[in-house]
């Protein structure tokens, strides 16, 4: 699959923003887990649509509309191939992973789940994979249960067993990689575990999809969600993968143009999936841009990307370990390039601001995972996250910056 050598200097030239300066310093962007930068190929694909081949999709018979529809649907094929979905109809385009999860909660959640059924999430979920289930609980009488994690940031299987013990659990909604701890969850094992107990599984793949090849058929997962903007793609576009028979059974979420077979005042006939779930004019340009992002990472190949990021993560852990009193959260066996840390006295916000003065962008706060903060006994952390364009030197710059901060606050 990999058709291009992993040459970091060349790769960095693909991302125009990496040449920018911040506060007179070279930008060191270590916030890709929040949103990744975009390669030229993605920007160009979007510009091309708007300059040369644009019209609304599906409803037009004219050349511009047909070509734009073709490009839009070709992106669906790309996503389907990328996830190894069984059929292109299993790919629904949304705004972001958040919408994908809400869509499942509103549709599958309110029809396939019944009052009294339970949904399990873990202690390390992003709010996007927690609050929609709280809303479902409050609106629909479903029970929401929390599976514990260990101190190292891994699934606590005993706790998970216990949550499933009474047979009421019908859905396990769990992250594939924590956006705070960097832990991967053992997706295949989780799916097998839940299926054996009669529950469906939704994986929040926002972080995982950026770093590893995902094969939804091999995982046998029921729902998989991610956002384009973290995968070097445009904002405003997200993906919901769901098994065909689940989508077939789901009522629509939003209503409007495109998602309809026929309309009369009395009776409206829904279109087949995936269009049933894509009401109104879609994010045409962004969807095509997402296709370009997938082409981009696939040309490099996840093997090369993962090898590069593994080396970065190891180096990052070593650099952080060298800073006195700095605490890295979590210590999962299987962890990726997302490192959250705290320092005594220096608050996460102070760390982020002081690093920013040196051109280094890290995130600070609760990372939309407040309950996990409580679980780890902190109120906020600083977080450095790595992407395929991150360099060893950038991590060294982070280390040097943190050393200085340590001095200031000592």
């Amino acid at each position: 699959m990999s058709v291009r050598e992993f040459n970091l200097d060349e790769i960095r030239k693909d991302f125009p923003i990496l040449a920018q300066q911040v506060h007179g310093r070279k930008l060191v962007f270590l916030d890709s887990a929040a949103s990744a930068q975009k390669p030229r190929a993605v920007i160009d694909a979007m510009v091309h649509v708007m300059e040369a081949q644009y019209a609304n999709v599906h409803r037009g018979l004219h050349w511009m509309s047909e070509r734009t529809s073709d490009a839009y649907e070709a992106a669906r094929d790309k996503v389907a191939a990328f996830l190894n979905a069984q059929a292109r109809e299993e790919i629904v385009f949304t705004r972001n992973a958040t919408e994908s999860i809400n869509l499942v909660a509103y549709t599958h959640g309110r029809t396939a789940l019944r009052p009294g059924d339970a949904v399990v999430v873990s202690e390390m979920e992003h709010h996007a994979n927690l609050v929609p289930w709280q809303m479902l609980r409050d609106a629909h009488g479903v029970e929401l249960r929390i599976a514990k994690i260990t101190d190292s940031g891994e699934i606590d299987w005993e706790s998970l067993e216990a949550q499933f013990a009474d047979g009421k659990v019908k859905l396990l909604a769990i992250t594939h990689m924590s956006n705070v701890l960097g832990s991967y969850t053992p997706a295949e094992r989780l799916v097998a575990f839940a299926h054996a107990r009669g529950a469906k599984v939704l994986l929040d793949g926002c972080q995982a999809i950026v770093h590893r090849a995902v094969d939804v058929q091999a995982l046998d997962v029921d729902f998989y969600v991610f956002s384009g903007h973290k995968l070097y793609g445009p904002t405003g576009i997200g993906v919901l993968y769901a098994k065909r028979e689940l989508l077939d059974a789901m009522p629509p979420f939003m209503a409007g143009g495109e998602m309809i077979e026929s309309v009369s005042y009395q009776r409206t006939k829904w279109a087949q999936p995936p269009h049933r779930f894509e009401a109104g004019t879609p994010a045409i340009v962004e969807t095509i841009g997402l296709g370009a992002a997938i082409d981009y990472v696939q040309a490099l190949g996840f093997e090369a990307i993962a090898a590069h990021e593994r080396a970065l993560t190891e180096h990052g852990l070593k650099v952080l370990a060298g800073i006195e009193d700095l605490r890295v959260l979590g210590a999962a066996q299987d962890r990726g390039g997302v490192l959250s840390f705290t320092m005594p006295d220096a608050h996460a916000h102070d760390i982020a601001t002081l690093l920013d003065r040196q051109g280094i962008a890290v995130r600070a706060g609760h990372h939309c995972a407040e309950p996990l903060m409580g679980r780890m006994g902190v109120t906020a952390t600083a977080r450095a996250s790595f992407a395929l364009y991150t360099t060893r030197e950038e991590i060294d710059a982070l280390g040097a910056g943190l050393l200085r901060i340590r001095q200031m606050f000592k």
Partner: protein
Amino acid sequence: MMSESQELYQALIMERSKAPHFAGRPEAFDAQGQGENAMCGDRVQVFWQRGGVVRHEAHGCAIMTASADLMAQAVAEKTPSQMTALRGAFEEVVTSGRENPALGDLNALAGVAQYRSRIRCATLPWVALAEALKEGQVHG
């Protein structure tokens, strides 16, 4: 190397955040107020005593803690309406970045203007103080 950052994290701020002069819950007070920034977990309690004595318990970043302490210093012996006026002047400084000679040490926080999301840190103690003053008014 860090000359620029030191504009914001200058000695006074670092000092007051590490060893505040006006911290601690007094045994007696006439009103109190709270400030909370859910985004980062910053929390501050402000205690007001008639006559213009203000103390704070600040849990959070250096900017917020130093701001609480410099506030307590600045409002000492002021009337509630003077405190309110001072809040307005201070907010002007931290949003505009322009120092105000009348504000003394509070100007140490002017550099926060460059960080819109940190302005909240600097103003949080003043929000808590305003709450205390409101309570003081009702009950006083």
